């Protein structure tokens, strides 16, 4: 159910008691979440915790079984899929891919002069202006990510949704992506992303949502990256250190070491 009448002025989307299920198994349970106009949030949680489903509820491609989704009227949303889900053998150049954002309106295959200029301008802003005629597979991980960001931004979104934007990329690319997203957010685009990367990405974001089917905690990283919330989110004990005012999450392997030692003893 999608409504728009009871949003606050600074809200883009609000979820009230949203529950999603595949068959009888709940993937999201009773989610209350508000996305503001200047928000920059990360959704963290283990595999199967419902991160992508939550993103798709925000996007509108998944309809909740229960609860309500309130959207601002004429809300424009850009979506950047997880790179692992993209068909890299599909025959599209960077230009063709980015111009998919302009699917509606024009009824001829080729782009107008204005569309072509907007596409080149967007690619240049993202530092890949000279790659428009390349096939999408012929790019580095960071460049591929930027192509889909460009496609999302060409639709002039108020809200950018990104599924695992730093999955499978190196540290340099991760820094580039984070820097790019900070710039976009400063320019007025709300951003919600999912990530597994607690130290490399999540701890740098202004707001986090810890998810494990239900929301376990949400707020600034210093408030939610705690041993208690992370253990309830990931189902494993974690240790939190602090460096330069930022939380650093460490897995606690000590209980596992004990098991490994006992197995070795049994084997010998």
């Amino acid at each position, binding site marked *: 159910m999608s409504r728009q009448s009871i949003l606050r002025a600074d809200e883009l989307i609000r979820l009230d008691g949203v529950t999603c299920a595949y068959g009888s198994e709940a993937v999201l349970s009773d989610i209350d979440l508000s996305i503001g106009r200047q928000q920059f949030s990360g959704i963290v949680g283990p595999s199967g915790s419902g991160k992508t489903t939550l993103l798709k509820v925000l996007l509108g491609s998944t309809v909740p079984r229960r609860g309500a989704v309130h959207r601002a009227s004429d809300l424009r949303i850009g*979506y950047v899929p997880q790179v692992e889900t993209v*068909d890299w053998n*599909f025959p599209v*150049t960077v230009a*063709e891919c980015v111009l*998919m954002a302009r*699917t509606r309106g024009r*009824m001829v295959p080729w782009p107008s002069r204005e569309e072509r200029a907007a596409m080149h301008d967007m690619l240049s802003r993202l530092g890949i202006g000279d790659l428009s005629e390349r*096939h999408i597979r012929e790019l580095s991980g960071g460049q591929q990510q930027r192509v889909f960001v460009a496609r999302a931004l060409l639709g002039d979104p108020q809200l950018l949704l990104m599924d695992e934007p730093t999955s499978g990329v190196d540290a340099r690319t991760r820094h580039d992506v984070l820097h790019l997203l900070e710039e976009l957010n400063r320019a007025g685009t709300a951003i919600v992303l999912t990530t597994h990367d607690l130290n490399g990405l999540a701890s740098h974001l202004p707001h986090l949502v810890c998810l494990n089917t239900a929301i376990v905690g949400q707020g600034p990283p210093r408030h939610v990256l705690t041993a208690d919330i992370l253990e309830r989110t990931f189902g494993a004990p974690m240790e939190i250190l602090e460096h330069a005012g930022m939380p650093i999450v460490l897995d606690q392997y000590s209980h596992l070491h004990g098991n490994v030692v006992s197995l070795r003893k049994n084997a010998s």
Partner: protein
Amino acid sequence: MIDRLLRPFEFEFFRNGLIVATVAGALCGLVGVYVVLKGMSYIGHGLSHAIFGGFAASALLGINFVLGAGVWGVASALMINGVTRRRVIGADAAIGVITTASFALGLTLFAIFGRRGRSFDAALFGSILGIDRSDVVAITVLTVVVAIVIFIGYRQLLFTTFDPEVAEASGVRTAWVDATLMLVLATSILATMQVLGVTLIAATLVIPATVARMLTNSFAHMLLLATAIGALSGFVGMNLSYHLDIQSGPSIVLVGAGLFTVVFAATGVRRRRPLLGLT
């Protein structure tokens, strides 16, 4: 030599057959791009067999075969689309279940009620040399209509084929786009089935698109190349069938397969060259 090459053009049946083979080749090449990129290469084979069930039903009911088989084919295509969109089972399995069931129903109807009406052998293996002017006009009009649909819906079709979920969320009515594509596909198969026969349509859908994919990384270029390769295969195959005195359907498919082999070898060499350069 030139006289020998031009001699078949003196016969009207050959000219008709050549036009239809070339236009049908272009049509299948164009539609085949979407079939291949959606991972539904088996659908040409499956739908042509499903339409065979429509032959049987239309013969028994005494209705026009094009109408009966057409409605049957479109219904089968829409059923495949509906089952696939539910995402419980894959497109390949949906095609396998629905089209073989339809084919089996056609065979059962024959077994129970016997063969009546139109020659079913022609439906199975095609009869390109028996084509008259009305067939030429019909398939040319159909090809123009399909080209217009793909021209107008180019952007929606591309987005839906590449990234259906994001396309849907971006406001593209993907259910309609998919249904339109299946309608176009079923109609194209029905029209070209008389030319190529049930058994060879799949090749004319898949081979041109596959050859084009090996030659380009651009979607727009792939559409144009596949259409041209389909038309070329039809034209050359039809001429070869006359000069070698073989059936036109297999001749057209073998020309396409020959092109595939040449392009596969050539693009393989091109890709290996940088690696060889490193050593």
